[in-house]
């Protein structure tokens, strides 16, 4: 990438949770990205392009790859928790208690004690199935399970974020920001609805170091529309990081990043397809 390239962030999440151009491409990519060594190589490709952070929904292969990557590179992880697809699958198979237990048993002894004590102090809210409490508890357990990784920013999974934004549940976000502060890291937001986020959070938005939201020259996934989103971004470009920069693979890497640069945003999130394409092209 060129000197004028905006700061880049590699986005990793289970390959099964992405869309692909064909079933064949899906199977080929999912199989390849189930291997930690392939994911590690992808991280190196992103690093060569200029990526200096990894925004990650962490599963076992991604965790292993990131552990290996961070041994060699001083690149922080921006953790997105909880892994919602895995959580929903566990909810269906195991129920709420079983899903929570599965996460609890993955923790180290110290984290188990901390989580257990934290849960005891919130028993009433847990019994009432309080959304913010449940989300925070699951997120905390998944975060604790990331031991060994250098995590500098914390995000809620977008499937949780959009529900919280729809309901105007600012408590889910402030709990995340509080948790991040206690850990000495920053909180962020990943959303397709940045205007709603700004409306729901108001001044509290300032507690979130990064808002990752779609930004591309086609207005793809920019809700309610490109103009409104860009107006918001221009007010405080340093807070926003562009996602969906290739508009679902419709915009080439060069023009995609030039668009982000023109808006002056704080960075751009690159998905693996973008990274592999740009790396091959030697952009």
């Amino acid at each position, binding site marked *: 990438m060129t000197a004028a390239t905006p700061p880049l962030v590699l986005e990793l999440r289970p390959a099964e949770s992405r869309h692909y151009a*064909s079933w064949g491409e899906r199977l080929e990519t999912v199989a390849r990205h189930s291997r930690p060594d392939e994911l590690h190589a992808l991280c190196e490709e992103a690093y060569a392009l200029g990526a200096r952070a990894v925004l990650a929904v962490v599963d076992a292969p991604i965790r292993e790859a990131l552990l290996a990557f961070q041994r060699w590179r001083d690149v922080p992880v921006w953790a997105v928790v909880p892994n*919602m697809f895995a959580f929903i699958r566990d909810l269906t198979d195991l129920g709420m208690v079983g899903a929570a237990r599965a996460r609890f048993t993955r923790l180290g002894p110290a984290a188990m004690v901390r989580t257990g004590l934290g849960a005891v102090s919130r028993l009433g809210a847990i019994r009432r199935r309080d959304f913010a409490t449940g989300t925070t508890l699951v997120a905390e357990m998944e975060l604790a399970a990331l031991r060994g990784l250098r995590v500098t920013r914390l995000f809620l999974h977008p499937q949780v974020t959009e*529900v919280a934004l729809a*309901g105007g549940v600012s408590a889910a976000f402030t709990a995340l920001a509080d948790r991040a502060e206690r850990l000495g890291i920053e909180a962020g937001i990943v959303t397709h609805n940045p205007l709603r986020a700004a409306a729901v959070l108001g001044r509290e938005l300032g507690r979130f170091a990064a808002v990752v939201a779609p930004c591309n020259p086609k207005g793809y996934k920019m809700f309610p529309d490109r103009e409104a989103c860009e107006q918001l971004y221009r007010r405080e470009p340093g807070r926003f990081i562009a996602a969906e920069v290739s508009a*679902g693979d419709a915009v080439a890497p060069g023009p995609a990043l030039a668009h982000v640069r023109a808006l002056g945003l704080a960075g751009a999130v690159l998905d693996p397809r973008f990274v592999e394409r740009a790396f091959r092209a030697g952009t």
Partner: protein
Amino acid sequence: MSARPPLRAAVVGAGRMGMVHGHLLQVHPETELVGFVDRDTSLAEHLASQGLRAPLYPSVAALYAAAPPDAVFVCTPTHTHVAVVRECLARRVHLFVEKPLATSRADAEAILRLATDAGVMHAAGYVYAHLPVVQAAHDLVAAGALGELLRFTAHAYVSEVFGPKKGWFFQKEQAGGGVVANMASHVLFILGWYFGAIRRLAASTRSHFSTVDDSAQVLFTFANGVTGLLDTSWSVPGTQMLDYGLAVDGRNGTLVLRRERILLHLLAPAAGHDAGWNEIHASDLPADTAFDVSPHIGGEAFYRQLQSFVDACRTGVLPFCSLAEACNTQRMIEAIYASAAAGAPVDA
């Protein structure tokens, strides 16, 4: 903001889909969420904690007494739909019913009859049909871009069932079936919307892990002569959300529908497209969406689905996703299970 009074809507069934609809009804500028109905009233605090501010009532009657709505969203388990719809239509309310419409063709047709007799607007929750690329592909087929339609291949896969499963969703008598009724039905709806009524089909289904069908293969003959194949499974690896695809051949070309694009190959120019390969990407199509409630699953389709229902209630013109179209889907579902059970083709 619309100058018209909002459409007052209630949600019956406060499960996962009920909550999604509740959120959208709260966010949409032309709708007002006036209540939930669920027998499990202990859900009230859970709903409130999600910012779903409307009261929870233990019955439709209690809802009607306290906050009579203009429209009702039926999101209860499938086997209860017909009874819930009958109860809801004690009052003249517009009706949205989650998919699949019912556990049987007879129940689906009973629901359609009830709605038709009540003279209300109605729609079914086949959400993927509201994605801009799916609608654009429909418009190309309907405009005759492919010429005479000949054949198709389709698939619907998801990685969900790899062992025994619990809950109503995996009980045939409550859910209406397995992967065919609950996942592939999204694609069946699209096929019916594109090609019309089914004439005959031959199907086989298998249960790999659960007690319902985990995979199926279906050979279709539609009334308009289109033939095609659907392969579906929720026991394949590689995809956490529904991966679907459709390729249609006509005398003038081929259309390939995928999640984010349409590939169109035409022998002669048609419908504003040149001969040869054309690509229509989702980013070239209007999204018309103010809020994305589920970025990874369904995306803007949820908002567009609600908008189409609101428009129908406003204009009195049934949407393309009406219960009549959903009945066509139900006929396919029932025929697939009948053919699989008989081990022979069946007329639908």
